[in-house]
């Protein structure tokens, strides 16, 4: 099988998949496709879509998905009759940053870093499904532990948490 043939198959798979398509999924669907060839096929497709104007092949949440080009948002939102684009407060972004870099983390820990009560911001993020409850901390009161969700990766165009830019470690989280 050539790279071009596989790219064609992958393109079809992408069209019908509503979740990010992973290399493993391609492998189980296509006989005789090995990892290296699959990677090449995805890259080949990405090149092809780059010359397209309306569709991009985006690497997100450990897979690949077809998405609309960012510049086409205004006509799309009119066509889909979408209400105004999702907005997040500055506080919500701060909380999201703390959760993204230090998950799992509890609400009191988040509030301590920000020096401000963060319950509202956490609730907003939970509602928008950018943050989820990942468990409970085994301390007095068993507070919820929060982490980022798959939607977070999708909405922020991240393949995995490793794609987040490195930041200097915070004092409050340095391990002794």
């Amino acid at each position: 099988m050539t790279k071009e043939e596989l790219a064609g198959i992958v393109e079809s798979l992408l069209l019908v998949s509503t979740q990010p398509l992973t290399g493993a999924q391609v492998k189980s669907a296509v006989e005789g496709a090995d990892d290296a060839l699959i990677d090449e096929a995805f890259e080949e497709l990405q090149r092809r879509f780059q010359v397209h104007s309306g569709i991009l092949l985006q690497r997100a949440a450990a897979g690949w998905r077809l998405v609309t080009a960012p510049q086409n948002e205004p006509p799309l939102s009119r066509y889909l009759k979408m209400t105004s684009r999702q907005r997040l407060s500055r506080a919500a972004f701060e909380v999201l940053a703390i959760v993204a870099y230090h998950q799992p983390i509890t609400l009191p820990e988040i509030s301590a870093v920000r020096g401000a009560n963060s319950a509202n911001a956490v609730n907003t993020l939970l509602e928008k499904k950018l943050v989820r409850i990942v468990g409970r901390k085994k301390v007095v009161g068993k507070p919820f532990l929060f982490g980022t969700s798959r939607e977070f990766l999708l909405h922020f165009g991240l393949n995995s948490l490793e794609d987040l830019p490195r930041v200097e470690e915070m004092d409050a989280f340095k391990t002794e």
Partner: protein
Amino acid sequence: MDLNQDLGHPFVVRDFTGPLDLLLHLIRSHEMDIADIPIVPLVEQYQKYLDMLEELNLTIASEYLHMLAILLSIKARMLLPRTEHEIADPETDPRRDLIAQLLDYEKVKAAADDLHERFSLWSGVLGRPEPEGEAVLGEVSLYDLVDAFHKVLKSRKEREGPAFLPLPRPQVKDLMAHILAFLPRTGKPFPLLDILLQLKNGMEVITAFLATLELCRLQCVRLKQKGPGAEISLVYLKEIPTDLTFVEYL
């Protein structure tokens, strides 16, 4: 620069996300050194800002007052004489914790700005929509319930023939038992409409509405619905407590 001079309107009223955000703004706008914060002018500026909020009749969140208390306590400790040995030891600097917190918070802000940028870039991008799939049984709002009963009342009106005899007034208590008797004890959802359509008249339907609310309140049943506008089902939870005293509404 002279921090004590009256700057007229030295502050822009903007939306600070918390006291640390405000402190950082003050430190930056007055070009203070974050590693060696001049605590006296900082407290002064901070207090001025809170005073101004008060003048504008804005509520000051308690965390701002908490921070003011911390600042004042640091200021007080800074006034105490310190030995040369103590001055040389950064561990004993009263500002140490605050500076560490501010530096951490600065990193959070930078990361938050970065996320904001990513978000503006990617949130306008649409993927293929997730399939509708198996609808999860969701919560039912009061309006859905009112709607369902309204539908039944309407269909009843059309079917109701001329009625002349005064009917016995249905009792909420009786309707509750009546509704509960329909429900499978296995906890399988039972369509509410199937119960309602067997009722004799509008009065009974209205009473059944109250009875359903009462059953929910007593947590004898739970209401489920597959989605907006979909059929409402009842799930059996427990029997009506026997020691209840009923207030009849009608």
